[in-house]
């Protein structure tokens, strides 16, 4: 009797003494001032970007979200592992938050790292409805730093998102001002010969594809932590300090190539999960991805954080300085990339088996160097000892792709192939099955789909709780798609076996096939989509239903919990 009493008292106490934290967010109409234009937008707690939410691994959070808009809203906790009713996708996780209503999200924090949150309703996210999440680990971080800053990027466009969507549907190249011109024809002709340039133009014209189709949405102002290049967000440091920069790409459409001239960056985390540290000079951050880097500026000077858009049509800029107001040089934008025929490798009618660069077996071999023949090493050039430098190549781009990024200083540019988990999250095991997802679309109609079917016509993808599935992404379009699976981790196959990095968003480059595996360990239904706002809205979206699992009996509780939150 006594024992049960004690146990009972303890169990009552545990939630009370266990970590519990309450947060309040209001969803508000805000003004976003880029210094070039002022836009009405959506923000949190009166600002865009919203606040940095600091959670601690192991705590139970409740977040009261009050909708001050005159339309429905929602918050999705991007990258967080939580019960599906708390995932914040209207129509899939819950009905959404009505105007004037307060909804209370409640979930345990079972992970650590850098994440973000955003609205999953309409176009509120590109209108500014996003913020960042920092989760402190229970134990120590496997790296050291003296200071940290969130560096949250976005691509603020002067047009409303509704208008952007409509313009893209009506005129898909509406915003593309990096198209090939007569001038470029002549400069190409003088470089590569007149006939071969004519041939090339005819080949692309025959396909009705544009080599310049690299960035759908141009004309934006790149923003860092709500500041435009002019407004120059500045992070202060003391020389010699290690600074952890938590980069989050909250853009609607824009990939950024990030560098800090004069500083080497050590990538220690990707998508919230620690990776074995990699020293780089530059890295590309896909839409919705996060990368944590550590830098150590030793000199008392300013350093520019330069985030150049992949299509070189715009940039974001911030500064690390020892005091406010210091500035460093802002680099020029480089020449825009042009697609090559290699990037068309995935277009229908082409033989996927031929696709070089992404052959899985090869990658594993390169990586582990398992098959290396030592006898051949005798022929190696010992004088230089550096690996032979070919043209830019990256196993996650088609071989000969025009999109392969290179570092501005000629140094190291991060590749997905460099990402290795710091600590494997799951036991390595064989997937039960493979699911092929062809990423499809039609640029001239601005339709985007998976396996040729838009979300409106699609059946859900059904997974079984407890299985491990292997997703095969085949990109048959000429655009890069950052694919985001909610609720469960995306273990990106870089050929490193148990060290494969664990992500929440996986970029699939044109003309490539990328594999990821997922441990289906979260029941319920989840969203799975391209995180480019206008691709998602145009149909590149799926619902994933996880059948079975410990919570299957409470499947109907979504209604209940949303009601419970409704009248707080």
């Amino acid at each position, binding site marked *: 009797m006594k024992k049960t009493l004690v146990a009972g008292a303890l169990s009552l106490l545990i939630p009370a003494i266990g970590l519990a934290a309450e947060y309040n967010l209001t969803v508000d109409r805000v003004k976003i001032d880029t210094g070039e234009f002022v836009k009405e937008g959506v923000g949190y707690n009166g600002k865009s970007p919203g606040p940095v939410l600091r959670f601690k691994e192991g705590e139970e959070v409740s977040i009261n979200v009050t909708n001050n808009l005159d339309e429905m809203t929602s918050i999705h906790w991007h990258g967080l592992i939580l019960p599906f009713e708390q995932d914040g996708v209207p129509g899939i996780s819950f009905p959404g938050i009505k105007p004037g209503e307060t909804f209370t999200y409640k979930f345990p924090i079972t992970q650590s790292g850098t994440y973000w949150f955003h609205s999953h309703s309409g176009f509120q996210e590109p209108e500014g409805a996003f913020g960042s999440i920092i989760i402190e680990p229970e134990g120590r971080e496997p*790296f050291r730093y003296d200071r940290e800053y969130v560096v949250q990027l976005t691509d603020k466009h002067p047009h409303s998102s509704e208008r952007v969507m409509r313009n893209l549907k009506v005129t898909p190249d509406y915003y593309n001002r990096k198209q090939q011109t007569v001038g470029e024809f002549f400069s190409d002709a003088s470089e590569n010969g007149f006939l071969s340039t004519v041939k090339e133009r005819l080949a692309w014209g025959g396909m009705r594809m544009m080599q310049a189709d690299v960035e759908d949405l141009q004309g934006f102002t790149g923003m860092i932590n709500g500041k435009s290049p002019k407004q120059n967000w500045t992070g202060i440091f003391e020389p010699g300090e290690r600074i952890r920069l938590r980069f989050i790409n909250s853009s609607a459409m824009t990939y950024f190539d990030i560098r800090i001239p004069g500083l080497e960056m050590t990538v220690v985390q990707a998508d919230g999960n620690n990776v074995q540290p990699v020293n780089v000079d530059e890295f590309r951050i896909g839409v919705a991805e996060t990368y944590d880097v550590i830098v*150590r500026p030793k000199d008392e000077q300013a350093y520019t954080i330069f985030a150049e858009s992949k299509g070189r049509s715009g940039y974001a800029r911030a500064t690390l300085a020892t005091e406010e107001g210091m500035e460093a040089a802002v680099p020029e934008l480089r020449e825009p990339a042009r697609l090559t025929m290699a990037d068309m490798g995935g277009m229908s009618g082409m033989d996927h088996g031929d696709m070089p660069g992404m052959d899985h077996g090869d990658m594993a071999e390169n990586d582990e*160097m398992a098959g290396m023949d030592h006898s051949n090493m005798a022929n190696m050039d010992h004088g230089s000892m550096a690996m032979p430098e070919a043209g830019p190549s990256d196993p996650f781009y088609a071989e000969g792709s025009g999109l392969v990024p290179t570092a501005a200083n000629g140094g190291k540019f991060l590749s997905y192939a460099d990402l290795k988990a710091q600590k494997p999250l799951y036991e390595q095991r064989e997937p039960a099955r493979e699911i092929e997802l062809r990423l499809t679309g039609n640029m001239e109609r601005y339709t985007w789909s998976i396996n040729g079917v838009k979300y409106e016509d699609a059946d859900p993808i059904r997974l079984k709780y407890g299985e491990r599935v292997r997703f095969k992404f085949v990109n048959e379009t000429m655009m890069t798609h950052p694919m985001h699976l909610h609720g469960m981790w995306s273990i990106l196959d870089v050929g490193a076996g148990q060290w494969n990095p664990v992500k929440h968003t996986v970029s699939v480059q044109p003309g490539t096939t990328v594999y990821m595996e997922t441990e289906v360990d979260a029941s319920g239904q989840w969203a799975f989509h391209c995180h480019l706002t206008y691709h998602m809205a145009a149909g590149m979206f799926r619902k994933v239903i996880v059948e079975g699992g410990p919570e299957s009996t409470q499947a109907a509780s979504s209604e209940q919990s949303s009601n419970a939150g409704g009248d707080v």
Partner: protein
Amino acid sequence: MISPRLIVAATAMSISFTAFGGGTHGGGHGHGANAGEPGKAGDANRTVSIKMYDNYYEPETIAVNPGETVRFVVQNKGQLVHEFNIGTPDVHEAHQKEMMMMVEHGAIQGGKLNHDMMEMDMGDGQSMKHDDPNSVLLEPGESAEIIWTFSKQGNIEFACNVPGHYQAGMYGDVNFN
């Protein structure tokens, strides 16, 4: 003794993996501090246990008396290859470039050392052996001993120069009493 070693070290700096043996060559770099020199077991008055995790040390600072000889017992408790290397920050930085090559050539593969690769003759009698007396390179689960005589005051760190590890914070400070 000093000057020939110095010349060798300076000329071999960019290509050699074995030139960082004694502390005697340190004078040519940066803060002008010697890390010290290999010690004799009999001179060690105390043992300091260093545990290497992914990617940090425990402890992260040690205090020594100038001229003290310390016996380090280094254990790799992580899942990745780690190094314990005593030197000045500049020496570490130079050494990191060579460790980078070891990774590029497959001598270090995440949690494994490829000893064949390390033994391989790289020409000019060099190899990636990594058998300097001021450092040990350990696979997960391995442990080793270093006996080191700290010569004098200076800016000395113990560090793991596996690419990225030092930058991520896998280093410790040697404080002189």
